[in-house]
């Protein structure tokens, strides 16, 4: 409840910003086990929104709900004004939602280039028939997209691993490639599931820089889950805190840091 008012206040402060995604009273459970309980929050156009919380707080489940991999039993999700009930993940993708995964989900059998290329799938429109001969429209299309992909490779500074099979890359780079793949989709909303998990300090700094650049240069709206509090506080405009599948706080990093429930949750005070 009070979280909601907080949001409202924040909204006035920034002069009614456009809301890109709205999650209202969403609940999700697996065979009786409740993963998410009646959660509501919104993500505004162009902001970096962090979702934090202790392990098992239902953060990843939340992302899975947002991009349609799980279907909540209750609640409504409104994306770009259109409320939707059940939608398949690829529909979410076609509406402009991209994401990365907690434990890298790259296509191990393919090269960096192909992995990022795969992100263009939805943007490739030419008919199957042409692809049979890799000729005419299909070929030119392939080339155009290759160029776009190369720009992303350049942006993420991974030229040197262009041809390397991603399976053999160090973890940090794999994460970067995965981000590249998501960017290749030219998403409006980018969901990042612990983009810096298992990275050393330097890698984290790079990744933070990239995330900020993405947000500023492409104007992509970003929702990210992250454990590293420092990172979250630096990167995000607003933070929503989950604990045991419930929302316990929502607001600017400062507000959240000050919130007693949050402190308890992180100190593990029993509920």
């Amino acid at each position, binding site marked *: 409840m009070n979280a909601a008012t907080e949001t409202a206040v924040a909204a006035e402060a920034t002069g009614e910003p456009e809301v890109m995604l709205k999650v209202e009273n969403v609940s999700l459970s697996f065979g009786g086990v409740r993963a998410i309980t009646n959660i509501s929050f919104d993500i505004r156009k162009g902001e970096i929104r962090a979702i934090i919380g202790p392990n098992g707080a239902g953060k990843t489940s939340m992302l899975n709900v947002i991009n349609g991999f799980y279907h909540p039993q209750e609640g409504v999700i409104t994306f770009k004004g259109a409320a939707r009930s059940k939608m398949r993940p690829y529909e979410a*993708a076609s509406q402009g939602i991209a994401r990365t995964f907690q434990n890298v989900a790259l296509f191990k059998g*393919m090269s960096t280039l192909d992995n990022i290329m795969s992100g263009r799938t939805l943007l490739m429109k030419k008919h199957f028939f042409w692809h049979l001969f*890799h000729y005419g429209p299909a*070929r030119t299309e392939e*080339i155009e997209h*290759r160029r776009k992909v190369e720009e992303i490779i350049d942006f993420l500074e991974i030229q040197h691993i262009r041809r390397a099979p991603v399976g053999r890359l160090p973890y940090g780079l794999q994460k970067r490639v995965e981000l590249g793949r998501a960017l290749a989709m030219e998403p409006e909303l980018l969901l990042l599931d612990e983009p810096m998990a298992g990275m050393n300090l330097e890698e984290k700094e790079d990744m933070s820089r990239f995330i900020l650049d993405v947000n500023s240069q492409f104007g992509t709206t970003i929702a990210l889950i992250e454990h590293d509090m420092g990172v979250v506080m630096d990167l995000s405009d607003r933070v929503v805190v989950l604990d045991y599948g419930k929302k316990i706080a929502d607001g600017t990093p400062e507000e959240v840091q000050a919130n007693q429930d949050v402190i308890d949750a992180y100190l593990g005070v029993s509920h």
Partner: protein
Amino acid sequence: MFYREAGQFKTSYEADQQVFPILQDKIGIGAILIIGLVVVPLTGSDFMITSIMIPFLIFSLATIGLNILTGYAGQLSLGSGAFMGVGAYACYKLTTIFPDANLVVLVLLSGFFSAAIGMVFGLPSLRIKGLYLAVTTLAAQFFLEWCFIRVPWLYNYNASGAIEVPERTGFGGIILSGPAASPLTRYFLVLGLVILITIIMKNIVRGRVGRSWMMIRDMDIAAELIGVRPLVAKLSAFAVSSYVCGVAGALMVFSWLGAAEPAAFSINLSFQILFMAILGGLGSLVGSFMGAAFIWILPVLIRFGMPAVGIDIAAETVEHTTRMIVGALIIFFLIVEPHGLVRLWQIAKEKLRVWPFPYV
């Protein structure tokens, strides 16, 4: 060692995305083509052509078919033999219905029938994964095999229950099939089709479609979240795969065996193709050829090699020993290089490219 890549730089993505971007590879492939198109026809004996080259090419084609499904799209199939059968019977019926049509056209057409059947049996793949899927393809295998026996219409009610290849001509009266067709004509027919289809397949797998297959194979969930429709991807894989197998099957009967009974398309054929795909290397067209060559030519070598070195043994013993050896070799290869012969070749190639250095 043979590679001289200094100065072979690419100024356009077209050039960069060629199938063989390196000059020396182009030369190599050219040499192979010349051998296939000129040397073999000129020097090869009838035996060489009919019992080694033609079957080798046909098996390569079938293996490519399976590779599309299992290697690229990651859907395990034990039914490729039956799909070949569909192609064969379809072609047989087509030749009886359109006696005057060009055989090549009919062969290419017959592929569509197996494609259709393949899609039907591919439907379960939307819900079933991995080994479970193998069972559904087995269902296809045995059901289709049964059809070949029980549906007399398929073999024009022959007493023998087998299909005999009729004489068919094309390209201005050249006899393409039947007893009267010369080995060379049949060889060129097969070779031509194999080259054509291989090129098309290469273009599919290097493009968007092929990528979506590999995405499904490597991580179907991520693929779906990126926007690949599993239905489309998997069924297209089944369709293309079965098409190629179908064509291979048609060729097998029309350009090689000359006649076939249902047993020809038994589960054993499916296994043979599967071995070729695995030994050659899943997810590689070149590998398909290597695998086919290995599995098909090795027994021949043993059969004619053993007497040559003095050990002469009864024919069936040879068969048994070959079985053992092939079986053992498969296990051996899975242990030393699960990615098949093609990977061995790739490693060798890398070594040659950085020669004299051990690594880049």
